[in-house]
């Protein structure tokens, strides 16, 4: 055996038959440390650029929002003393009647819009299971509203409902005038205005539900239907006991995504009503924009956006738990 010296290098070269080579291991270089040979570290190296980008656009803004929400910064008033205020902004929001008003409107908007979009989208998806002439063309037409930029959608419908001169107000007004009723104030009445923006949201996003649910329907195997037909089950029974349970995963995806989006709707409302008349269409996101970009209360806006994020996370969590439980029960 050749004894190794402290340097780790053998004093004399090992010879064949001398036994286990006593060469001290070399310190790994950077390439070896981060390279493919290091199976523990290398996956992280490959993911590093993505993680950095995600941290930059996701984690840093979140932390910055947390810091902002714990201060009292009004960007248009840099002369006001800025200090750490802890949870004051959240407390102020919870005590603000405007917050509860906006939350109530947001819930009404979200529930109503998503409910209508779901059933209309499902109806269209079921219709498209049949053989229809020109199905491909009709599908494209159905998807068009979803493709248009929400801002443009808002503008189109704002002019459609333009007082006295819009396409909808003109013809609907003409129809109702036959019964002695003045034209409907679609965007000028607090109740009608909310329903009108919900209508526009349904027009715009029903195609999304249709798309997801169509894909879900297409993925359901034919055997359960064949078995049900042999057993003589009615269409209604088949729909509730086979189609809907098997469609649950797609329904979950569609509902979670649309609920999150509807909760945060801003563009169409802003363009059509600017939150009015009065504050009858001032949902949380519309109010947030007012607080943040009209009054530049950055801290209050940050606190509000974090509360909205929390609400959306809780909603999504509830959806997933409920659907998962039902799916497990069904199986």
């Amino acid at each position: 055996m050749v004894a190794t010296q402290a340097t780790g290098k053998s004093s004399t070269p090992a010879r064949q038959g001398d036994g286990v080579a006593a060469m001290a291991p070399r310190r790994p270089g950077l390439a070896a440390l981060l390279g493919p040979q290091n199976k523990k570290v290398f996956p992280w190296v490959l993911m590093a650029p993505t993680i950095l980008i995600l941290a930059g656009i996701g984690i840093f803004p979140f932390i910055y929002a947390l810091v902002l929400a714990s201060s009292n910064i009004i960007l248009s008033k840099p002369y006001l003393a800025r200090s750490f205020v802890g949870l004051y902004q959240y407390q102020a929001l919870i005590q603000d009647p405007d917050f509860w008003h906006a939350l109530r409107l947001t819930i009404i908007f979200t529930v109503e819009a998503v409910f209508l979009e779901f059933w209309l989208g499902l109806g269209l998806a079921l219709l498209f299971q049949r053989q229809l002439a020109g199905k491909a063309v009709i599908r494209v037409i159905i998807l068009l509203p979803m493709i248009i930029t929400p801002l443009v959608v808002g503008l189109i419908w704002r002019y459609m409902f333009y007082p006295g001169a819009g396409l909808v107000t003109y013809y609907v007004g003409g129809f109702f005038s036959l019964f002695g009723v003045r034209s409907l104030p679609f965007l000028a009445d607090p109740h009608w205005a909310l329903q009108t923006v919900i209508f526009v949201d349904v027009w715009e996003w029903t195609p999304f539900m249709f798309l997801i649910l169509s894909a879900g329907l297409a993925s359901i195997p034919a055997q359960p239907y064949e078995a049900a037909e042999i057993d003589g089950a009615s269409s209604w029974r088949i729909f509730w006991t086979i189609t809907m349970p098997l469609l649950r995963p797609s329904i979950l995806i569609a509902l979670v995504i649309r609920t999150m989006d509807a909760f945060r709707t801003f563009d169409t409302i802003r363009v059509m009503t600017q939150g009015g008349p009065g504050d009858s269409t001032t949902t949380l996101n519309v109010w947030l924009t007012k607080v943040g970009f009209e009054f530049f209360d950055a801290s209050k806006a940050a606190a509000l956006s974090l509360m909205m994020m929390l609400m959306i996370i809780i909603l999504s969590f509830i959806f997933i738990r409920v659907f998962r439980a039902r799916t497990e029960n069904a199986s």
Partner: protein
Amino acid sequence: MTRLKTILGGVALAALLAGTGLAFAETDYQKKFQGTELNVLAPSMPQFGAIWKLVPQFEKEYGIKVHVDETPFDQTREKTLVDMQQGTGRYDVFAVDVMWLAEFAAAGFLEPVKKYVDDPKLTEADFELNDFLPRILSGTGVFNDTLYNIPMGAGPVGTTFRKDLAAAAGVTIPAKFDAKFNTDFMRDMIKKMHKPENGVIGFANVPARWFWGVTYLPYLYAFQKPDTVGNEYIGPDWKITINNQHTIDSIDYYVSLKQYMPADGASWGIGEATSAYQSGKAAGVWNYQDFIAGFFEDPKMKDIAGKSVHVHTPAGPDGVQDPWFGSWGLSVSVASKQKEAAWTFIQWMTSKQQQLAALKYGAGPTRHSTFKSEELAKVAPWWPSSYQFMLKQTNPDERVRIPEWAEISDIMGLQGNRVWIGEISSKEAAANMEKDMTAAMKKGGYYTAGAKLPKQAWRDLSYYDRKPSEWK
């Protein structure tokens, strides 16, 4: 070949000299701005459209390229503040409405301009700051005794009516500023001119939430009694005083005009109301003096051209008239990297010559010389009668010039619009306005013990009558 080269060289040199000659600057110092590009942010309004017609001439004279970004009026403040607080210097010149001057100046976003005015290298010899009406200059551009901009347009709000329809209804409209034109007269007149069966509404008002602070405020002032003037919504101790019977009466009056509008008029802004009048579907409309040329007297508008009479907003039951002050100034951004070039543009645009030249495009006067000119009387005869008003009666703090005005205006608009749509009563609105405005003032530090509070200049309007050159 050598001869050809000489000829070609001569031609090239001549072209170069000619090009250089086209871009001469006013002073030798300003010649260094040639090739500079300036960015201007302004609202899309007729009076600005009028002065932008002079931009090519400025570019030719100074060799400075000017890019103008226009925004809708109700988005101007947002867009302006977003850029200002980022401090990028993207815009060199901002158009500043009088109601936002305090907010922008207090935040340090505007460059004081007096030093440029007094610099002969940068300001034309006959710029003559004292030619501006004192209240117009101080009201538009002075905050904390410091001059921050030069006014390019100012005037009162008012009402415009179709004189032919008034005559057909048997109504003789009093002269502008005549106290006979009061709230009762106006409502009675509107009622007579309201002919929905002919497709004509009595009055195209502007009740949209964002605009309420502009279009309703004259009525809040008109419904005061002589002894409550000065305390319309803020008291001597900065406490909110809006919750009173005058406010309730003024809101009730304003909302009573709703019956002479379409049912879906609650969200009408300036655009909708103006369109209704321009298309001959309204007998009367809200106006702002600087809009008259572009919105109501353009010869291309066949339905209304030459058929309108422009009067003030009505006096109230006790004869009080609204001392409206509206104006826009051009300011240099504190973040601009070419402040002197920006000032060169502003001083040229607001000079005597250019103000006169812009009259034919629909711009308005802010100088004594322009108000008294024959040109003004010829092209815009509705202006000279406003001279004394702008000189002596107008109150630059009619919309109180504090940083909290935007919030106060929004509160007024929200509550007022809610009354308009029947959600709450005027009494509730007044109470809500007091509560929310008080919260806004408290947030602004007005009720903090020992706070250094600004002077309430509207209680002694002689403050605004200081000679323009005396401001710092």
